[in-house]
């Protein structure tokens, strides 16, 4: 995973709440077996509307998505994270994220930044007034800044460290393989296995 320390880019204001992962990437795109190439499915249904914000030329090349609350609800499809990343987004700002989406994002290096709804509203106003402004998401300092404002955000120290170092979770866990083996030795004998029955 690529380390994430700080990112500066233009922002895309998505004034919608409850953006579920079926909207981020519809199911018909999930038949692929790769991790790349999902950018064409990003918000596929909404993109058929020429006035949808992703289609507006003034926001082309934006890398920070600023969305309404409850972003990423619904299906656990990690394809939603891949679609956002494949399209070019590095960070998503929202007042509240669905748990599974947030977990998937942080695993894959897409930074989710939770800010109060009033702050999201401020950023929307600034970006809509001037789509050329840059927004900086600084993970090192846990701070989002934009022309005329800034706001701190919270992220647990462990996730922050992992993202900044670009560490692979599996590698980290396998450092504790002896603990796993020791735990396995204590598991109850009545627990089921999936071994086919005679």
């Amino acid at each position, binding site marked *: 995973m690529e380390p994430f320390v700080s990112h500066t880019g233009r922002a895309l204001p998505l004034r919608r709440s409850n953006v579920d992962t079926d909207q981020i990437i519809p199911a018909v795109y*999930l038949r692929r*077996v790769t991790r790349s190439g999902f950018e064409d499915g990003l918000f596929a249904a909404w993109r058929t509307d020429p006035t949808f914000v992703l289609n507006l030329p003034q926001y082309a090349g934006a890398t920070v998505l600023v969305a309404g609350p409850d972003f990423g*609800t619904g299906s*656990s499809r990690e394809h939603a994270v891949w679609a956002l990343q494949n399209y070019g987004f590095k960070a998503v700002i929202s007042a509240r994220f669905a*748990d599974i989406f947030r977990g998937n994002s942080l695993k894959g290096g897409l930074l989710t930044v939770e800010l109060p709804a009033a702050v999201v509203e401020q950023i929307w106003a600034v970006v809509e007034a001037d789509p050329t402004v840059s927004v900086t998401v600084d993970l090192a300092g846990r701070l989002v800044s934009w022309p005329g404002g800034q706001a701190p955000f919270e992220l647990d120290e462990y996730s922050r460290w992992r993202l900044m170092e670009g560490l692979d979770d*599996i590698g980290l866990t396998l450092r504790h393989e002896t603990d796993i083996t020791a735990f396995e030795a204590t598991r*109850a004998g009545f627990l089921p296995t*999936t071994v086919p029955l005679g």
Partner: protein
Amino acid sequence: MGRTLAEKVWDAHVVRRADGEPDLLYIDLHLIHEVTSPQAFDGLRDAGRPVRRADLTIATEDHNIPTIDVDKPIADPVSREQIQTLRRNCEEFGVRLHPLGDVEQGIVHVVGPQLGLTQPGMTVVCGDSHTSTHGAFGALAFGIGTSEVEHVLATQTLPLTRFKTMAVTIDGVLPDGVTAKDLILAVIARIGTGGGQGYVIEYRGEAIRSLSMEARMTICNMSIEAGARAGMIAPDQTTFDFLSGRPHAPTGSDWDAALAWWRTLQTDDDATFDHEVVIDASVLAPFVTWGTNPGQGAPLSARVPDPASYSDPLDRAAAERALEYMGLTAGTPLREIAVDTVFLGSCTNGRLEDLRAAAQVLAGRHIAESVRMLVVPGSARVKLAAEAEGLDQVFVAAGAEWRGAGCSMCLGMNADQLSPGERSASTSNRNFEGRQGKGGRTHLVSPQVAAATAVTGRLSCPADLKES
């Protein structure tokens, strides 16, 4: 101090705990399907890692497979490739697979409990958000993404930050004609699609205790629609009776040892929850959704709400947008909404009890001419059991289509889809825009409401039907 059910199961699975780090949790059962696993197996292959515990892993084909002509090669080449990829991966890594055509094939969340693999006190994960279904047994069960699927395949563990706990207590008795689906839709409307964020919900109270295992699975299944990581119900005699004799349930002295552990899986009297919600079952009624998220629901007797009645501007905008997408006008009685399609199935309501309930309504009746009805059993076993009871004949005689097992129109990934502008009454779990096909409009309902709606062509409950 006492502990909640969720805390007891969590604590029993901690492999490693260290300050400032997530707990490393052991996973007892990992369920796999074709859609969220290919990239995880690729990751293993790239890193040269094996599946650590193939004997705690099981795969089935459900999301993407056709529900007709299941004995023929899958027509769509992209879908076929995904299925073949799962088959190759399971072969290469030694994972048990129930492919299309196998008697144990079906929706992953129907198959696990059916085989007796889902048991109280276990940790269960799957690359699917409706893994919360298995919480009905008092298991801690939750959906994960593909990176986590790879993590579990490689290590049989997951690093996790402790969940918060919420009690949803349903006091009293459900009125006649009110089902588990109505109950959970009412709960989601009450706490909202984000209200459960970060929580494990434990469903408690008299109304929950009186529910069958199948109804409990319907409840826990939709916990994710309230934003919760998981839903749980403490195991009791209903749970033990369901498990007894299942293929992978313990037997003999193992059963006794398991039972002794299962009986401890209750929230202690002096335990505290981080949040509590109490609902009176006796005031509940058949419930349907009118909008584009599962929290936008109302009793069937209500009218389409007026967006202006919402004080929060984002809620108001969401309601306006939902009505526009759904093609509905504020103030319209929900009973006047006409549908083209009725879908009976899914991991929410595709079990035998659901099919029986719908068949009871349809027996001796015919669906409206304007309606097509798809009946998709949750598993091949459910299909066989339904056929043994003659339920398939009831559905076919009523004019419905009797299909093979799978996820089907719940998510519109295979050919079973709504066309743009078509409207469904669906026993599934999500009414998101385009969920059942691009431009399709979904109303979430119980199996009983689905069947009655198929008869009248408008959102209806069985009590609305004249005696035939």
